[in-house]
């Protein structure tokens, strides 16, 4: 399916992987909950695979899904 973006990398290449010292690039990532997958495009390190989750996504959609699935 088509990945949905919830952020913009602006400007692209501004973020750097601290471990590898190279710019993050736009790549595919997937959040998982049980056997549900949520594909997104996020800045990833092309060398070590580190995925950067922007604060707006973590505190936005991810938090909304977490709240909706919150246990009784």
């Amino acid at each position, binding site marked *: 399916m088509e990945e949905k973006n919830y952020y913009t990398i602006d400007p692209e290449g501004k973020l750097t992987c601290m471990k590898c010292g190279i710019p993050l690039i736009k790549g595919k990532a997937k959040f998982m909950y*049980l*056997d*549900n*997958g*949520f*594909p*997104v495009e996020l800045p990833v390190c092309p060398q070590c695979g580190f995925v950067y989750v922007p604060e707006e996504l973590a505190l936005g*959609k991810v938090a909304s899904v977490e709240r909706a699935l919150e*246990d*009784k």
Partner: protein
Amino acid sequence: MIIRRTRSVCPVCLKNIPAVLEQEENGRIYMSKTCAHHGSFRALIWQGGMDFTAWSRGGAALAEGQGLDCPGNCGLCGEHESGSCCVLLEVTDRCNLHCRYCFADPKCSAADPSSDPAFEELEGQIRDLAERCGQPLLQLSGGEPTLRDDLPELVRAARSAGCSYVQVNTNGIRLAQDPGYVQALAEAGLDIVFLQFDGTRDEIYEQLRGRALLQEKIRAIENCGRAGIGVTLVPTVVPGVNDRDLGDLVRFAAEHMPDVRGIHFQPVSYFGRIPGNRVAEGSVVGGSDPRGSTLGGIPEERYTLDRLMTDLAEQAGFSTEVFQPSRCDHPLCGFHAQFLVRPGGRLKPLTNISHSSPERGTARDNREYVGRHWRRPEEEAAPAVLRDSELSDEMDFDTFLYCLRHRSLTLSAMAFQDAMNLNIERLHRCTLHVYDRGQIFPFCAKYLTAVAEI
């Protein structure tokens, strides 16, 4: 082997006495207790089809000297561990059915509304409970609350008093017959109809409720759906009557989602009115249970929470791992599970016991969970990706959130306690409370019914 020490009551005189949970080699767990005056009693607590220790999570047992005055000195006291999730208020003693099983054991006559409490009296009680119980979910119950023509005004009063959610506990007969009444309830702010719904076949209603009711139940669901009121189906599960209908109940609910938001199973308990039970006042209600040994009509072979979960999983076609215990109420008091409903009614589980948090939850968390899952969400356009296609295992966050709101189903249960299996440890954590003339009681203390001495 004794696995737990707690306290209970003598089922005959209701005096507080020590009790133990004993596990047999076959995994079955019994509550055993002895009253100095009335002898020894034991009640099946767990059939052994699921791991008791994993489910009950070994929370703290009653401390020495705790629970000695329960439930004789109820309302809620300083020993009570939980706030109010749901508060039940009886608004009439009248009813238009005469069920063989009824926790409230009302006067089963629809006539004479002059016996009802006055609106102004109930309005004052609603304001009082909303303030003292922390703006709970209010369940208007009875008797049959829809026999009151002013029920919409009571719903409005609950809303203006600040109750977080308002629910009506009903057999659905009037909701089926009177769409204008349903609309008035919706406009007054009713969130949830808690619909007595024991099965998908009329024989079940004939046995439990005295007549065929299925078509009326379906009309009630349709009328609530049109008015935007969420419906929770509430079956009383009685072995030999509807315990083989659980899978069909789930399929029915999935087909009627989103009008139906969930099923709340209530395995039969022995209080109020049950066939053969001798109530505290000494009147014999009649009938007897043909299965096994009985005490005042209570069969020794009880329908336990773990048997409900294993039967449900087997009949509906999923694993028992989807069930999670409450983090707020005692784990032996119930379960919950949530599913996405796929085209054709197939269920995709969204819960798993492995995701269950050991941290104690609050009554407020509990209330928000049930409110969120049982009320009907605002109408909104479906995401384009869903319009013609199968629900995928992969979807974007927005589509998933839409599906949680509009294409999900919650299965839950509450196993009420009776005089045979009452566990004070469970009672201390109860969040389902009953308001009665200024006092607040745990549900299972309020409706506790003694069985007569054999």
